[in-house]
């Protein structure tokens, strides 16, 4: 019998798993996707919220502030891209000014002492590109941006190195109580564990229901985004929110941890939690709303668009609790869930440790050995890298300057990439302005060769997402 099964390898599940790997426990993470970070974690705003937004006293408020303060140490240990660039909530006139004051008040109760309200002149000094109708703003210096999937992958890799097992492409189909623990049925067989942690994101409602929890606790809520070319990276240097107002919640314009500019999200309740389709209306709405925040919105520099589905809980707060004996629910982890994730990991681990009373894992290593990134290396470093490994001299993705050595590393990591998208999330191959037009063929070749497969078996994101159908002339009769 396992000690703990964590269901879901998104940012929350991986944060819990890594936190639990500090103790002597047998841990298995079950993930229905073909990679970690394949749900909401790969498609969200990538914002580390300072913590002024959530109502004081809610779990969202407490976890947000506690969580965001853990990012500096975590990113140092695990080497994922994170920048505390600060954020502004933009106000457009007198009504918004009152809203900003309310946010300022909340933020101070939540524990933020460095936030401040700025007038237009002060805003322009920080962000000369803001729109003409911006009048006031709330500045939060501790806000930041992070690469959510790289953070999640790093948490997973580190957890794996510290002994956590991962079963990908494993769908939980049933959960039943079995003596002192739980029997978890999956498409890949049954597992027994003393404790189950439900971190299934948008599917956490269904998982909770399998274990006897209430029905329909989670409402999937879709948000659509557009991403701009790095060429426009200078458009904003902080996260620009909008005061939630009559027009709805507003959208953000933010630099990404990788130097692009992100616009979005919209917010729409949907039925299918897996439906990450974008819509004409949604993308238009995101751009329309964002155009208020900026003097100039370069629509012709959009390189891609995407949608993510958040897990909204009907209580409007995070659920972090032992709902049944040995069954820990982590539900409704929508925004500011990413910011809160490290704190949620700790909180969940505390609950689990309260049940199992495990010993410390004296061999726990908090660090991930950083693998060199060619694009971030100096010319001298590049020369040294190539001398050690000529694959560092083979640039596969020209837009993001990713070398073959980095791609091979991504395939050989503890949670090794098995698809093109998985390589992309680990290395940025194909994330640039040509969106893999140049490197897709090379990438298919490298991935299939390293995994010992035919190029015909290569997939975009696992499962039925094949890329090539067969040899030419094969279908000719």
């Amino acid at each position: 019998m396992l000690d703990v099964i964590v269901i879901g390898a998104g940012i929350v599940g991986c944060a819990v798993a890594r936190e639990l790997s500090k103790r002597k426990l047998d841990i298995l993470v079950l993930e229905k996707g073909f990679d970690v970070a394949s749900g909401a974690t790969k498609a969200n705003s990538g914002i580390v919220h300072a913590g002024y937004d959530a109502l004081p006293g809610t779990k969202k408020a407490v976890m947000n502030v506690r969580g965001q303060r853990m990012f500096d140490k975590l990113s140092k240990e695990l080497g994922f891209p994170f920048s505390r660039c600060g954020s502004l909530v933009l106000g457009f006139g007198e009504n918004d000014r009152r809203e900003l004051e309310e946010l300022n008040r909340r933020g101070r109760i939540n524990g933020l002492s460095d936030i401040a309200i700025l007038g237009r002149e002060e805003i322009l000094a920080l962000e000369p590109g803001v729109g003409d109708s911006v009048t006031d703003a709330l500045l939060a210096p501790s806000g930041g941006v992070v690469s959510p999937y790289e953070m999640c992958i790093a948490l997973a890799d580190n957890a794996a190195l510290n002994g956590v097992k991962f079963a990908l492409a494993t769908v939980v189909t049933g959960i039943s109580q079995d003596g002192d623990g739980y029997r978890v049925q999956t498409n890949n067989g049954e597992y027994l564990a003393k404790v189950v942690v439900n971190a299934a994101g948008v599917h956490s409602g269904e998982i909770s229901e399998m274990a006897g929890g209430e029905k329909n606790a989670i409402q999937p809520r879709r948000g659509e985004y557009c991403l701009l070319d790095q060429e426009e990276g200078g458009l904003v240097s902080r996260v620009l929110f909008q005061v939630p107002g009559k027009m709805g919640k507003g959208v953000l314009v933010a630099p990404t941890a990788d130097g692009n500019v992100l616009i979005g999200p919209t917010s729409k309740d949907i039925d299918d939690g897996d439906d990450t389709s974008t819509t004409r209306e949604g993308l238009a709405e995101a751009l329309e709303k964002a155009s208020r925040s900026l003097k100039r919105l370069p629509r012709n520099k959009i390189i891609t668009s995407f949608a993510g589905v958040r897990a909204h809980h009907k209580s409007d707060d995070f659920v972090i609790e032992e709902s049944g004996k040995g069954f820990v629910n982590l539900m409704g982890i929508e925004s500011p869930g990413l910011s809160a994730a490290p704190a949620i990991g700790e909180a969940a681990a505390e609950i689990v440790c309260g049940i199992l009373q495990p010993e410390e894992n004296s061999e726990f290593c908090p660090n991930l050995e950083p693998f060199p990134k060619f694009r971030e290396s100096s010319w001298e470093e590049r020369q040294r890298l190539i001398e050690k490994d000529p694959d560092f001299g083979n640039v596969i993705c020209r837009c993001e300057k990713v070398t073959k050595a980095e791609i091979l590393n991504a395939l050989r990591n503890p949670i090794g990439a098995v698809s093109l998208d998985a390589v992309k999330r680990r290395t940025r191959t194909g994330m640039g302005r040509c969106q893999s037009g140049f490197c897709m063929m090379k990438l298919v070749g490298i991935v299939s060769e390293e995994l010992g497969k035919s190029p015909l078996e290569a997939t975009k994101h696992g499962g039925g997402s094949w890329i090539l159908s067969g040899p030419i002339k094969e279908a000719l009769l």
Partner: protein
Amino acid sequence: MRDVDVAIIGGGPAGLAAALGAKKAGADKVLVIERDRELGGILNQCIHNGFGLHTFKEELTGPEYSARFIKEVLSGDIETSLGTMVLELGSDRVLKAVSASGIQEIRAKAVVLSMGCRERPRGALNIPGSRPSGIMTAGTAQKFVNIDGLMPGREAVILGSGDIGLIMARRLALEGAHVAAVAELMPHSSGLKRNIVQCLDDFGIPLMLSHTVVGIFGKDRLEGVSIAQVDSSLRPVPGTEKLFPCDTLLLSVGLIPENELSKMAGVKLSPDTGGPIVNESFETSAPGVFACGNALHVHDLVDFVSEEAQEAGENAAAYAFGEAFSGSSAEVVPGNGVRYVMPFSINPKKVKNNMTLRLRVTAEKRNAALVVKMDGEQVLKRKKMVFAPGEMETISLSGELFAKRPNISRIEVSLEDK
């Protein structure tokens, strides 16, 4: 750091011709830097015929066309550096390149930019829908089919009826796939008539003009696309959506000159061509940096690429020998009905026997004439039954016109009624 006379970035058709031009003009050390493992550039994957009618008076396939240039380059005391990608270029013409054998730093007396172009991806169109596999640019598919011998799918829809889209429709059909339709946003195709007949009609592939893809379906693999009619302002008309089941969507929706390096070197780009602003000698705004081929502006015919590039190479060699290309110039401006004219300025003193202008019109026009005016005075009128944006027009101005007007300040080309 090593020194060369002329460094040529990119070993496709433009780079090859530029190298030959530079050598012919007497440059000693000519270096072609190519990121691929072989020379030839995009022609390696253009296995169809139709190349070289102007240059060789016969129709060659892409590899055959490039082979003729490669042979000359390899036997012509020109150095080539394969598997090498230039990552940095300064306005001082010092470049840094990377290959499996390390970092090279090269100082060139003159540089020729011949990096080619890239295709617009799905994101640039912001087509809504899901994100399954099976969506790629026509050029990527061409690489898979023609270089690896592998098919991108069995049932395809192609968006965009530029020549690459048309050529790929035929390639897929020939190799056993079914091509359900080619959708084109505009009311006319930018592809050659010959390609519409021989790539679509021959294979019974419908061309849907004034249509575009408005939806993408399928979670893992593409399962279908929704195609709708567009109105005169190119907006989809609600209610006209039709579902096309398919597992492959190829995008042939435009080419963008590749100029990341040019920007690093401080080269000014034109919003009309997406390429560098050059003078009559193909010199960019950065002295000693020349541009040609699809990095300069997107061509329809490789023959014109070779012609321009050879000249760019010759001038680069001259610059390496100390010739300066600055000096008072006449600006060349597109007038009515003309989208752009290449070059952007002409120094009359630099015009030798004659001066070739290349241009594109903004919209199709029948029974019209291209009119060239020098400081308001009409110096040439060329009538034609039809002008189309998809066909690059060439005008040759005699050297005499310039010799007589050494101090002109403005040359305008416009499309007028016959």
